[in-house]
């Protein structure tokens, strides 16, 4: 293996951008900060591509197996003997693939933002935050230690919080960033406890050792982890499920998805980068990273992953059909597609042909990043032009935004799985894997894929076809003049090229569950039904939305119950509010307050009557409550004494 320590530069350059722009940006680089950040990231991207080339074609493969290489490792904290927190870099097929995806998408977003955020007051701050995010995400990918990944995981959360709340003078943005942070933090506690359980039983935090110890049937660590159980479920499964909860929070899986739609309050390029292409797939990446443990040692945890993924995919697709805010449609679509990746992992097995789901999941992650970033950036161009997120304000835009129109169409075709666009290939593989292993999930996936093409083309036709725009908007829009110039169109075109061609990459050659090359097989007969279903979805959408008519309203009226439920996102947010406000506040906080006010105070008042007489006389120099404190002290002491001497010996 050649010396590849330069890989450390890939995350460090965006960090440098963050530090430089964060500290000096507002003073010295008011206008040039975008260029600086973009230039640094360009170097990172080139390095990432160079790394990928070297790894996949030169030194990565030994005896037909891609190696897990650790070019850098620094023991940061020796926690106890055997357990240490390291800062290291791991290079294996998925991390190399993710390096390319994250740097490339981030670069596109950097370039795009040069136009989109132009003239914003806090331009340097924006690029500083983007740099921080890119650094954290890249650090997360190359983590060689489960604790290291947790640290970067949190950093990613913090930078996402900062970017969602970027428009901090908008109350909705502030509420959204708080919601995102708290929901994901809640899930992260699961992750942390999961890490503690896994590391406790495997006696290491290092990924390679942990996977090795927890997948070798003879190892003592695995035996102990399986033998120990809590509520009838083994400690190993608990650990993995808790880790998955962390992943589900970040990846917006049902029922922890409620933050994602609100996160669309951030600037649109940020949504493209964080809430579509990179951060939200961190959960998928985490499961993929620990995949051998899931698959070999705890199939139950893996099937949970599968079902949660499938449910999320279906629910999100139904909700997406009814939303009218274009970014929210895309947000739900993201959740649905991540559901695909999750259940693809869930139905996969370890090794050989059975590991198809794993390859497919990573393949879909790759293609989805490209076409979903494209969709968001396209939506950004539309919003930039029309100053609204609502579908009702749009229509007939294809004449005004020709490039956006074409690229958006390509992305829609790709996500709908129409051959030969990228989404077709990855989705076929996922469906095939599901078909071979779990028929229930297969049918859910098939229905979802039909819904996907329906809602995507509903979006497409509503934006670019249909009625012409009302004249009131015309005035506003003409001021902007066109599509935002070269810097905004270049990323669209590049991504559209990717969305059209990325499917032809023989992904199985590079990424498979056991890191041995997997031949891509193509089943023509098998792909007929999903493609047909996809085309049907497109045709229905065309019939309903291409020309202005009242079919959508009629349809909505016809299925009013379901439509209303889906429009209100199945009332999941309301359920959360109900649980927190009604149940927690009413059933726990109110009684506590009542208890405090009536019982505790009442008791103290009653016992305090005697002391009151004395206190009246010395009231001039004290507030009259100190004796209550003393009584509380005594009551506490006596109850502890009673408890420990008589009850709990």
């Amino acid at each position: 293996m050649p010396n590849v320590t330069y890989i450390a530069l890939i995350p460090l350059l965006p960090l440098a951008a963050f530090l430089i722009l964060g500290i000096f940006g507002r003073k010295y680089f008011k206008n040039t900060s975008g260029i600086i950040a973009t230039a640094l990231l360009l170097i990172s991207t080139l390095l990432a591509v160079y790394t990928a080339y070297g790894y996949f074609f030169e030194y990565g493969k030994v005896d037909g197996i891609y190696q897990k290489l650790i070019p850098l490792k620094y023991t940061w904290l020796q926690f106890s003997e055997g357990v240490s927190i390291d800062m290291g870099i791991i290079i294996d097929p998925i991390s190399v693939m993710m390096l390319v995806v994250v740097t490339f998408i981030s670069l596109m977003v950097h370039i795009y933002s040069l136009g989109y955020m132009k003239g914003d007051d806090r331009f340097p701050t924006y690029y500083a935050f983007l740099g921080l995010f890119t650094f954290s995400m890249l650090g997360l990918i190359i983590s060689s230690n489960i604790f290291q990944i947790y640290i970067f995981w949190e950093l990613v959360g913090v930078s996402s919080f900062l970017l969602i709340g970027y428009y901090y003078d908008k109350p909705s943005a502030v509420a959204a960033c708080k919601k995102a942070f708290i929901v994901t933090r809640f899930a992260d506690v699961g992750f942390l406890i999961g890490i503690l359980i896994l590391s406790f039983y495997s006696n290491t935090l290092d990924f390679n050792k942990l996977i090795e110890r927890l997948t070798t049937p003879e190892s003592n660590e695995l035996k102990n982890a399986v033998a120990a159980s809590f509520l009838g479920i083994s400690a190993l499964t608990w650990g993995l499920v808790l880790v998955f909860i962390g992943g589900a929070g970040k990846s917006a899986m049902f029922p922890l998805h409620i933050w994602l739609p609100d996160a669309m309050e951030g600037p649109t390029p940020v949504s493209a980068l964080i809430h579509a292409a990179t951060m939200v797939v961190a959960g998928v990446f985490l499961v993929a990273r620990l995949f051998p443990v899931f698959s070999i040692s705890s199939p139950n945890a893996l099937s949970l992953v599968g079902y949660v993924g499938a449910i999320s995919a279906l629910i999100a697709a139904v909700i997406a059909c009814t939303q009218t805010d274009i970014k929210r449609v895309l947000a739900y679509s993201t959740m649905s597609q991540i559901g695909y990746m999750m259940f693809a992992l869930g139905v996969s097995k370890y090794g050989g042909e059975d590991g198809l789901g794993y390859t497919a999941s990573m393949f879909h992650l790759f293609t989805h990043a490209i076409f979903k970033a494209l969709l968001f950036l396209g939506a950004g161009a539309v919003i930039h032009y029309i100053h609204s997120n609502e579908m009702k304000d749009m229509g007939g835009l294809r004449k005004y935004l020709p490039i956006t129109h074409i690229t958006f169409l390509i992305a829609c075709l790709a996500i709908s799985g129409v051959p030969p666009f990228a989404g077709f290939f990855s989705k076929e593989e996922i469906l095939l894997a599901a078909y071979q292993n779990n028929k229930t999930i297969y049918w859910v996936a098939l229905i979802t894929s039909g819904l996907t093409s329906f809602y995507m083309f509903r979006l497409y036709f509503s934006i670019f076809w249909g009625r012409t725009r009302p004249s009131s908007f015309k005035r506003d829009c003409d001021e902007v003049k066109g599509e935002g110039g070269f810097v905004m169109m270049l990323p669209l075109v590049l991504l559209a090229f990717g969305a059209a061609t990325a499917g032809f990459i023989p992904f199985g050659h590079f990424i498979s569950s056991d890191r041995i090359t997997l031949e891509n097989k193509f089943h023509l007969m098998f792909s007929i039904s999903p493609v047909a279903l996809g085309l049907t979805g497109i045709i229905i959408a065309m019939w309903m939305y291409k020309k202005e008519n009242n079919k959508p309203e009629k349809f909505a009226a016809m299925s009013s119950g379901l439509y209303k439920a889906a429009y209100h996102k199945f009332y999941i947010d309301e359920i959360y509010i109900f649980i927190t406000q009604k149940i927690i506040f009413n059933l726990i906080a109110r009684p506590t307050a009542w208890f405090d006010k009536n019982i505790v105070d009442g008791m103290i008042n009653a016992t305090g009557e005697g002391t009151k007489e004395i206190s009246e006389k010395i009231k001039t120099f004290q507030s009259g409550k100190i004796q209550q404190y003393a009584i509380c002290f005594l009551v506490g002491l006596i109850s502890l004494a009673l408890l420990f001497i008589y009850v709990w010996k």
Partner: protein
Amino acid sequence: MIETLTLMKPELIITFIIFLLLFIKIGKGVKSETMLLLIQVLLLLNFITGFIFNSEGNLFDGMYQTTAMMALQKNILSLGIYLISLLFASWFKKSEHMLEFFILMLSALLGMFFLISSGNLLMFFLALELATIPVAAMANFDLDKKVSSEAAMKMILSSAFSSGILLFGISLIYGATGTISFTELPLYLDGSPLQILAFLFLFTAFAFKLSIVPFHLWTADVYEGSPIAVTSFLSVISKGAVTFIFISTLYKVFQPINEVWYNMIMILSIASMVIGNLFALRQQNIKRFIAFSSIAQVGFILVGISSNSAQGISSVVYFILIYIFSNLAAFGVASAISSQTGKENINDYKGLYQTNPFLSLVLVLALFSLAGIPPTAGFFGKLFLLTAGASKGSYLFITIAALNMIISLYYYLRIVRAVFMEKNEQPIEKIEIDLSAKFALTICAAGIVLIGLLSWTYDYIQSLS
């Protein structure tokens, strides 16, 4: 003689400084700026000498004992005092009786040093009183404010009450075992009801000093009424000192009945975290807020103490070190703002970032650390406490602790949101910060970031425990 000198070096140095200050007080008045500078230099020297010429051993038939760990603990407190002398410089300069204040504070510190080193219940009691009574006088230092006198009065009365119970407990222990020496006590402890009762009396005295629920009621009034320098002394230095002696008596002296105190600690820890958090949620006054949140923090310290292992000691000492930096930073910012504008309400902090970016950043860093958000040191502190506690295997306890971390996150973020995100028509105007306060805030901020990242700090503490 030489041995006495070297073993008791920290106490002797503090005594020397106290006498020096007394002599200066008797002599003609010196300008308060010069005086404060002198005191700061003396305290810095005291902190530095804490690192050198440390030896281990016993004195006076085991009444006084010292180890490398104790020297470290004392030095952590010295660092805290030094930071306090810097942080509240502008308040000190305004006060006519600055020298008395330092004499009182150093006397309390001397008491704490003896407390940490005590090897006998009698010594322990005397040291605890020495560490408490001067603080009550300090609480009264805002001479023109009624709340300040009220705080002092409440503190002295409730302390007297708890001391009475402590003394009762000590006499019961002597009655039950026939000894009050820390080394002999474990031999006679067998967990009989009388011993448990006596232990409980002792235990509540600790709980009172640490403001553990339900022995915490004095805390809020005293913290709110006292001058901010005293509040921070009480919530950081006093708590640190009592925690240190608490953990060493539990682990060494009361080891034979560890099953009993494990359960007590578990119950009180849960109560402290839950009630501290619930009350902190409602507070609008920033001092009261920090006071209640510090009750919850003590709940977390108890999680670490419950582990009854070497890791328990190291994680608690590590946490206290971080806690000193984080809490002093928060108090420092609150004090700078309240002394110049008189504003102590959280709503007044809206939009602080626009006018005072430095103060805002330090405050946010401190709050992140208190909330335990990585990569600040507070995260590692809490993590180690939880891992230490988890080694005992009561996962329900650890889960409750982890859930409380989330609740606390909510209210710490509330302030962060006010500072950074909420708009305010009339934000607090630009505040001139004293140079030494700025220096201290920078040290605190650096500490909050670096102690987590530099792993040798934890390794060093671990090697001593």
